[in-house]
């Protein structure tokens, strides 16, 4: 190939990144430097879609921001060349850069609520952006254009809704509005940074379908940044797997997902829980039969708020947990699953209904009478940051329940805490370290050790892995399975992720709007769902196989 050919080929490319590196300086002068992206190169042809996948800290979002040079003026050091839609981004002056941003390449962000200005109507914000790139367009015409694109992204009654402010929209509608803003100036490239991470799985499917349709219609290129391999499978042509700021593997989506070459990609894929397959690892099933009922909730109900704005979070829910059994509780945000979980361990008082533990009614017991039972009902929390006291060493956090129970012999308490740390896979030598020195997964292990300290019979795990990366997720789930087997624990496993729940549960309850809509053995609920809501949920879960994913999309389109 001659050099002329090469430069023409380069000019034809929508995105061309050569040897990109981005370094952030933490803590000003003398602070440590963090190399977020390290010598990354890739290209994207017009109309094609590339997925950049990686765990947290892999540098994937930094790459997305670098395409529009959003690092300019932030103090980050950027090296290498970036060309987007014919513009040399790093060499471009402010004017040129402004023309590129939104005009030729538009970006959609993760959190749709905070990404829109709360003070202006959504239509006005879209019109403002439109007029930035088309100064000749009148205000009125820009507003009309805003309504038009809002209609295109599926906002019902767009002329009226264009006058609403972001907080009057639901999460999915806000993400649609952001997409509408991106569409307003007919860009050639759409950069989407975790566009569906904050959304429920059914809404996620809708947004991904919309993205797919828009691309088919406008022919724009797509750069999709996500941590979720399932999201990538159905939405892009090529995949770039990142780790520690470098490309690990790059190829056609079908090849990378089906026949990965690199060990890290294999590891990632293996860690993703599958919703469509019988899990290989599974804790020992409850063998004690129907009489081994540990915890039983009958007609449990919980209301919040005062007289004026009373809402019912949990509405007449009945649930049974047998000894040694794992009950999965799935539902989307606002389904009441967390409230139910907290009532089961009596962190929240039920408004009505009965809660029986080993046959004893504990729903209305006062603090004092509850004390002997407290230790048997423990909880693992979602957020590994707020669930540990930042002022206490991890060892002391684990020892705290032992001391609260009256453990006076300090040496024994410490020894027991060390045993527990070891039990969850942490080095007892870390006893005196503080939570901020640990990763999310390690903190979650501390949380589990603390929950084990009082010697529980039942562990309610509230989204224990949803804040974690997929490989860490798999390790924590394995640990929970192990503990359950070895200690004969019963588990209530709460999660929004259907695949995760399937991997650990004997029985599953599907919650929606404070009620349980379907309940049964895991295989049955996942294999032959009867309730339409469960069916919808299952159909919306992204799958790793691009072809299956395409089939499912077609199915959703006809439904």
């Amino acid at each position: 190939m001659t050099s002329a050919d090469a430069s023409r080929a380069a000019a034809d490319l929508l995105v061309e990144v050569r040897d990109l590196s981005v370094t952030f300086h933490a803590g000003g002068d003398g602070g440590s430097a963090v190399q977020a992206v390290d010598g990354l190169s890739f290209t994207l042809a017009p109309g094609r879609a590339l997925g950049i996948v990686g765990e947290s800290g892999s540098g994937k979002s930094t790459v997305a921001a670098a395409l529009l040079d959003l690092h300019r003026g932030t103090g980050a050091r950027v090296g290498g060349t970036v060309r987007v839609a014919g513009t040399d981004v790093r060499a471009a002056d402010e004017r040129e850069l402004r023309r590129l941003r939104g005009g030729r390449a538009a970006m959609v962000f993760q959190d749709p609520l905070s990404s829109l200005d709360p003070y202006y109507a959504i239509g006005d914000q879209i019109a403002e952006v439109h007029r930035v790139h088309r100064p000749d367009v009148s205000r009125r015409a820009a507003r009309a254009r805003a309504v038009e694109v809002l209609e295109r992204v599926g906002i019902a009654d767009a002329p009226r809704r264009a006058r609403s402010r972001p907080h009057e929209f639901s999460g999915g509608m806000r993400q649609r509005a952001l997409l509408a803003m991106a569409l307003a100036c007919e860009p050639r490239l759409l950069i989407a940074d975790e566009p569906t991470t904050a959304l429920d799985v059914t809404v996620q499917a809708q947004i991904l379908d919309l993205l797919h349709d828009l691309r088919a219609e406008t022919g724009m290129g797509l750069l999709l940044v996500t941590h979720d391999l399932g999201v990538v499978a159905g939405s892009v042509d090529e995949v770039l797997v990142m780790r520690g700021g470098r490309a690990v593997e790059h190829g056609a989506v079908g090849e990378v997902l089906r026949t990965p070459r690199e060990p890290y990609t294999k590891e990632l894929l293996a860690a993703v829980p599958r919703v469509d397959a019988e899990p290989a690892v599974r804790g020992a099933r409850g063998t004690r039969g129907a009489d081994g009922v540990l915890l039983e909730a009958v007609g449990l109900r919980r209301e919040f708020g005062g007289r004026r704005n009373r809402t019912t979070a949990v509405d007449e829910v009945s649930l049974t947990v047998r000894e040694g059994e794992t009950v999965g509780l799935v539902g989307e945000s606002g389904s009441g699953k967390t409230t139910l979980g907290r009532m089961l361990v009596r962190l929240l008082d039920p408004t009505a209904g009965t809660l029986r533990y080993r046959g004893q009614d504990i729903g209305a017991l006062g603090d004092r009478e509850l004390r002997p039972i407290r230790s048997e009902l423990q909880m693992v929390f979602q957020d590994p940051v707020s669930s540990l006291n930042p002022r206490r060493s991890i060892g002391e956090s684990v020892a705290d329940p032992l001391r609260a129970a009256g453990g006076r012999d300090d040496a024994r308490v410490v020894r027991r805490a060390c045993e527990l740390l070891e039990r969850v896979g942490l080095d007892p030598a870390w006893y005196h370290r503080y939570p901020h020195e640990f990763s999310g997964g390690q903190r979650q292990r501390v949380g589990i050790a603390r929950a084990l300290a009082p010697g529980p019979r039942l562990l309610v795990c509230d989204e224990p892995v949803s804040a974690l990366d997929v490989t860490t997720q798999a390790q924590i789930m394995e640990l929970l399975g192990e503990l359950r087997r070895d200690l004969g624990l019963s588990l209530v496993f709460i999660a929004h992720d259907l695949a995760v729940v399937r991997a650990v549960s004997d029985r599953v309850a599907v919650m929606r709007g404070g009620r349980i809509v379907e309940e049964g053995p895991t295989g049955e609920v996942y294999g032959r769902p009867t309730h339409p809501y469960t069916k919808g949920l299952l159909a919306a879960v992204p799958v790793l196989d691009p072809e299956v994913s395409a089939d499912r999309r077609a199915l959703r389109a006809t439904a």
Partner: protein
Amino acid sequence: MTPRQRGAVWRRLRQQSAAVASAAILLALVLLALAAPLLAALAGQDPTTYHDDLIDSARGGVPLGPYGGISGDHWLGVEPGTGRDMFARLLYGARISLLIALGATAVQVVIGLAVGLAAGLGHRLADQVLSRFTEVLAALPMLVIAISLTAIVPADFPRPLLLVLVIGLLGWFGTSRIVRARTLAMKKLDHVAAARLGGSGPLRVARRELLPALAAPVITYAAVLVPGNIVVEASLSFLGIGVKPPTASWGQMLSTATVWFRADPMYVLLPAGCLLLTVLAFTVLGDAVRTALDPRERSRLRVGTHSARTGRSADAAREKEAAV
């Protein structure tokens, strides 16, 4: 706070040169105030003796000599009208200013902590009652009430103590609001729930999970309160309702100075300078303490907007104003 975090706070404090300078100024000031009788004796003066020979009675009592009568005997000149020694009076004024401001701050912090904790930890009803009560009291403009109260208290009640009580009793609302808000926010944190599940009773939770985390915001707020209290004391004295003559007070001197500013500018500049320097030093130090204790100032402010979105906006605005 972990030992390591404590070390980091000190380091951040020491890095701010303005903070170090302020601390040095304040330290000097405290020493000067403590040693006031000694220093005055050293200068051979005391704050109450009249020197009629040093003022020009023909011109209504303007000090003789340049710059308010500065001389080897009277290092900072003498007071117009009375001829009392300025150096001694300024020193004794510092005593009053610091004593009342620090005393009042202590009262404010103690009451604020107690009420805030009771509202934050107690039953919903207790919270409602206390919050409403605080709201009513906070609606009373502090200076107005302080002035009015001095009118009805018997004349023989010791004035400095009265000022400490009045300023203290009328200024604890901010502290209690912050303590209550923090307590309520922290009660929702998972590690507090975990402690309850671990078998801790309410008292143990309060002592081990909540109180340690309140130290930083309370210290920060107290640091902001001190300069405010100095100004309030000076203001009351300026209005003639502070400490009684012949006790020296900067505010009172400035009040007298309103008559003398044409004839004797030094009489304005000296007490004004003392007052300004003290307030400024406390303000700068308070700022530095806040940033040192909470390097993520921005995120703290964001908490402010969050409460504004869900709660009383006027309160939020006021709190934010106090926080910036």
